[in-house]
């Protein structure tokens, strides 16, 4: 059974929480006691309908203010697959949460209130989905009940959004539009009765039918941990534990160790004693090599004919997530996968005005919380990264403030 990870993005009051509540409700993922708790809470708020948004707004501050503040992870499953939804808040000031929530996902669901159409936020959502190279975007045109289920209205919104998508989408990104009403369950798990003019699939069927062609990516194995049992039985055992970032590895293949450049052949690929012939992306395995080479945490096993660059100077797009702004000259800790190095910001090249799709080049002195820009930095140790656009699984890094230890920003190698 596979897992489909989805991110949701929307603006205040476009019914995102209600949509998720509706998905859970219609896939029978909420139990009776939770529905009863919901009924009670809805009544306390003086509502005469089931407020499905109360299902996901879990923090005290969120319930008090009636808004979503932090990324919530929500789970449901169908006979086909397991779904994980990262429900990210839609406020301007929470761009960092949107990027965080979307970073692990394959599908982005962008909500639009049919009464309002395109908002400033819509640009931001599309830009982020594109920046993260999320392969599929589903535009949920919600609250169709409030515009009389009008086909004309839907088509007008679709045309507006298509224009944005044409500007920021990357090649191969799929954009799908669905008119719906999450309050009345129109086009969520069953075909809408109120919109016979819509020929596409309802949301759940669209998700169920989503699949991605695996494009062959280069083999990358970051070594997380060296297993050395030093017991009688495994006296000379040296295994390299890690999760394959991308591509695949097979027994007998020649590999190169970065940064040393030493080569060896794969002797075994193991999973708790089970011997595998081949292992692929996202699998946590232990690899042993035929010869004694020097390998430690932070090193990377790759194939000789397809190696990443060993970068000490990196140009990257950055999304800033800290209240302390990013400034040129400051030193951070750069963490790329499980490898890290000190890094110094050499230059702040530009800042991106996400809404107007403009790049501001002149006089960029700092990057503030929730701003996106382009920087050049220098690292103390080489980083074995691919360009994010070529291989997202090996092309992103985070910057950590070495004074506060907070994760201050995320970068995408250009």
């Amino acid at each position, binding site marked *: 059974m596979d897992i489909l990870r989805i991110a949701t993005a929307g603006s205040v009051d476009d019914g995102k929480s209600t949509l998720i509540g509706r998905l859970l409700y219609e896939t029978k993922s909420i139990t009776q006691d939770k529905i009863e708790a919901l009924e009670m809470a809805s009544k306390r708020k003086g509502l005469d309908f089931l407020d499905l948004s109360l299902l996901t707004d879990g923090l005290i501050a969120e319930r008090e203010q009636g808004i979503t503040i932090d990324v919530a992870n929500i789970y449901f499953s169908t006979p086909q697959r397991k779904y994980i939804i990262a429900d990210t808040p839609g406020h301007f000031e929470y761009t960092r949460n949107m990027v965080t929530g979307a970073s692990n996902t394959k599908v982005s669901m962008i909500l639009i209130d049919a009464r309002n159409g395109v908002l400033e936020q819509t640009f931001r959502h599309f830009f982020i989905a594109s920046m993260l190279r999320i392969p599929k975007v589903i535009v949920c045109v919600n609250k169709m009940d409030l515009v009389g289920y009008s086909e004309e209205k839907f088509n007008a919104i679709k045309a507006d959004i298509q224009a944005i998508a044409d500007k920021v989408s990357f090649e191969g990104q799929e954009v799908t539009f669905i008119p719906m009403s999450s309050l009345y369950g129109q086009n969520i798990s069953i075909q809408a009765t109120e919109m016979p003019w819509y020929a596409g699939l309802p949301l759940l069927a669209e998700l169920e039918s989503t699949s991605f062609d695996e494009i062959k990516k280069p083999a990358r194995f970051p070594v997380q*941990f060296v297993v050395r049992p030093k017991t009688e039985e495994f006296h000379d055992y040296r295994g390299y534990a890690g999760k394959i970032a991308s591509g695949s590895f097979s027994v007998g293949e020649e590999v190169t160790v970065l940064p040393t450049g030493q080569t060896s052949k794969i002797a075994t690929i193991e999973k708790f004693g089970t011997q595998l012939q081949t292992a692929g992306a996202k699998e946590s395995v232990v690899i042993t090599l035929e010869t004694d080479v020097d390998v430690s945490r932070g090193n990377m096993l790759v194939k000789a004919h397809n190696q990443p660059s060993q970068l000490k100077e990196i140009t990257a797009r950055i999304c800033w997530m800290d209240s302390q702004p990013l400034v040129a000259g400051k030193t951070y800790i750069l963490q790329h996968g499980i490898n890290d190095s000190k890094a110094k910001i050499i230059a702040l090249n530009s800042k991106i005005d996400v809404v107007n799709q403009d790049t501001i080049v002149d006089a960029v002195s700092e990057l503030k919380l929730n701003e996106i820009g382009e920087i050049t930095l220098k690292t103390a140790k080489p980083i074995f990264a691919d360009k994010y656009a070529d291989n997202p699984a090996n092309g992103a890094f985070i910057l950590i403030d070495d004074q506060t230890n907070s994760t201050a920003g995320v970068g995408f190698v250009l």
Partner: protein
Amino acid sequence: MNSDIPKHGFFPRELEDEAIYILREVAAQFEKPALMFSGGKDSITLVRLAQKAFYPGKIPFPLIHVDTGHNFPETVEFRDWLAKETGAELIVRYVQDSINQGKVKEETGKYASRNALQTVTLLDAIEEFKFDACIGGARRDEEKARAKERIFSVRDDFGQWDSKRQRPELFDMLNGRIAIGENVRVFPISNWTELDVWNYIKEEEMAIPSIYYSHQRQVIERDGMLWADSEHLNKDADEIPFEATVRFRTVGDMTCTAAVASEAVELDDIIGEILSAEISERGARIDDKRSEAAMEKRKQQGYF
């Protein structure tokens, strides 16, 4: 109401790969991690995952159990057996000691439980052993405050969780850097649901304490739930114990975990029950029912 749900009993292996990756990060990034072991199915699953993550090496950190003194005897027995079986080091600290030292006071009344008290014992143990990372079996599907907690959740000197100061977690990069005195709670099975855990237990043929299966037990009925009768439960005069066929769906203390009437004697029966259940797992946790924000408030105080 759920009779039309198909029985889908497949465990997504990606979840195991993710959890093993997280456990290896803990071993690599921290000096003194520990696995918080409760004897419940989630922490038993963690032990299994830790065995796999470091095989053929041993689990490189101890298991720590905060014994409230109100645990089910079956759980304690199982805990000792599992530690022996896996060769893992087991550390036990007692809430009774915290009470004797005057650090906490026993609750009174018929809802008295030691659930809230164990936080103090845990924080003392963290200080005693200087643990910098404590691995726990909490899952995000259990409760809505948990749905927002990170995989690496930083706690201050007082063990407190601040929902507004959480670090963003991007892709699979885990930032475990902390200042002296701080520690991190780590939740490797954050993305698992109750059903995932049971499917995993089944596919891995894992042993679990007998109280998860149907058995005969003396219970009382209170607030529409079945409570296990024991010397620790404060009963009203009209609460007369009777024998029932029950099992436990979640295992905490005897004073805060309700039993469910059940005939489930095999894992398949249990999985079938969960698929058709009309009440959620934590619906059987009396400690969560104290208020709508009960879990978040306890987490702010250092509860795991």
